[in-house]
């Protein structure tokens, strides 16, 4: 155990990630709506010692009740539409939607029209788009920081709940 901790400390010194310039806090609820799991695997690695998104106070929460951001991966399948809306409805304001990966953005989606509703924006208003197939952990981290830092909350348009058409 001590060796493991010592090795991790050594690794962190070696990687030497810059310290956050200021405090932040952003709690993310992840919803996989029909991905190939590529975006999930790269999102998981945003908490590896090499990226360590959590040092910015950005982390995953286990309930939409605790979340600021709903992060959607995959194009939305018919069976995930209701769970996605349910998660959104449970989130307190202010709340934002992030569409992660090309499928969530409606690019290069594969499947039948009977099974796929559409990109994230077919179901919810999207505040941040992170392209990639999949985006790398660095790209995900940079984009999420930009969401947080890019505009004061009052400058972002009010999030409106949109029923599916």
């Amino acid at each position, binding site marked *: 155990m001590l*060796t493991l901790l010592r090795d991790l400390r050594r690794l962190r010194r070696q990687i030497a990630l810059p310290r956050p310039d200021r405090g932040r806090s952003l709690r993310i609820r992840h919803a996989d*709506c*029909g991905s190939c*799991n590529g975006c999930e695997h790269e999102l998981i690695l945003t908490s590896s*010692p090499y990226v360590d998104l959590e040092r910015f106070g950005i982390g995953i929460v286990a309930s939409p009740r605790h979340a600021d951001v709903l992060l959607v991966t995959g194009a939305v399948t018919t069976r995930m539409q209701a769970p*996605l809306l349910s998660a959104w409805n449970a989130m307190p304001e202010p709340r934002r939607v992030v569409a992660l990966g090309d499928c969530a953005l409606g690019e290069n989606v*594969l499947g*039948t029209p009977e*099974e796929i509703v559409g990109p994230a924006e077919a179901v919810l208003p999207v505040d941040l788009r992170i392209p990639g197939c*999949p985006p790398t952990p660095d790209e995900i981290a940079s984009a999420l920081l930009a969401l947080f830092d890019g505009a004061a909350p009052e400058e972002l348009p009010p999030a409106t709940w949109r029923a599916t058409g």
Partner: protein
Amino acid sequence: MSDLRERIGTALGSGWTFAGLYAVSAAGPVRVVLADDAGGLRVESADVVRAEVPSIIDLAPAAGWDEREAHDLYGIHFTGHDPLRPLVDHDLDLGTWTVPVQGHDPYQVAVGPIHAGVIESGHFRFHLVGERILHLDARLFYKHRGLERAAEGVTLEEGSRYVARACAACAVTNGVAYAQAVEQALGLRSVPELARVRTTLLELERVWSHLNDISAVCAGTGLAAGAQHFAGLTERARRLNARLTGHRLLFGTVRIGGSDLAIDAEPIAHAGRELEELQAAAESGWRELVFNRSFQDRLPDVGVVRARDARRLGATGPAARASGVAVDQRAAGPGLAYDGLEPVVPEGATGDVRARLEQRSLELTQSFDLLDRLLTAPFAPSSAENGGGELALGAARVESPRGATLCVVERDGDQLARVHLRTGSYANWPVVAFAAAGNMLPDFPLINKSFELCYACADR
């Protein structure tokens, strides 16, 4: 009507094992795929008469999900499969898709499809008394995209896109299985250089996957230091993949009929050094886990699957080997460079979380040794050669990091008439549900992580 059952029964009795079942269309036929020890595959077909086909579920319990899926997607009724519970079809009440459970004040805990952390979507309905799980009904197909149906009618070449994006974690395995199935149908044969590059890609996929799995099991017990150590190694493995092929998850590296991958001597040498360092770091991290008493205490006798149940349920891959079923598709698979590979099983083969975790460590050693042997020379583009007659149907089975993956391709000239992908994850999901019974609910995340199956390539 008994003809299919006779053929299957005779085959299973003479050493063949069940490898898959699917419907070509609503009008049939239904195909049953069988496998032997030497990597041979055999396809038996049955006509669908008045929307019915005899069930083989009593002969091959592993065919349970396959028959339920064929029913839900193509409307075929499997006579004798009673009750034929919905699997892909979600619009039915609880009573039809869950198993009736009786006990002393049992209640249900419904989890998902959206889960606590970063994990794919799927639903688990636990039947419990207190914290003890009596039974778990797992309902997947929330991520069902209709990939197989969407691929019908495209060219054989375009079809590889659908298979490649069925699952990121199995991108190489699925790609190779599809390519080999198409090549069989086109009468093409692998050559040593093509075998070498495909095997290298398969093992690179296995390395990052197993490092990820060890990290996941650590996370499942709350051992952050272990999870972080192996997450760091997973990141390094992905960076190596990008350095060698241009993509961290090895997307776009496999195609039909050959390989375009060109890797010079310098990146090969770098890969050799990096893999040596990765292996040393994985081994030192593993040693730390072995001597961590509170971590080790969480693992034994949890989520036990005995060998006879593993065989009966059609378990495959590391989970099956951890139960003592010493079968590895790599030892059998044609067209690849796995000569002499023997399946490994952990000492005692206890089929619990401990054994499944140890299996990852044993297989990492195998993979590092294999890559050492494969990465001895640069890679240049290569092509399969003409080797036989053309067929309307081709099939291949390749070992994914989670077990044997089958791909069947039915062609109409250059068009893909039907593609069926049955992955190691698909085979193992019913085994996860079985493994959960009798355990405490707080141990389920750990049990699930000890299998670490994909949802995407099960749902397609």
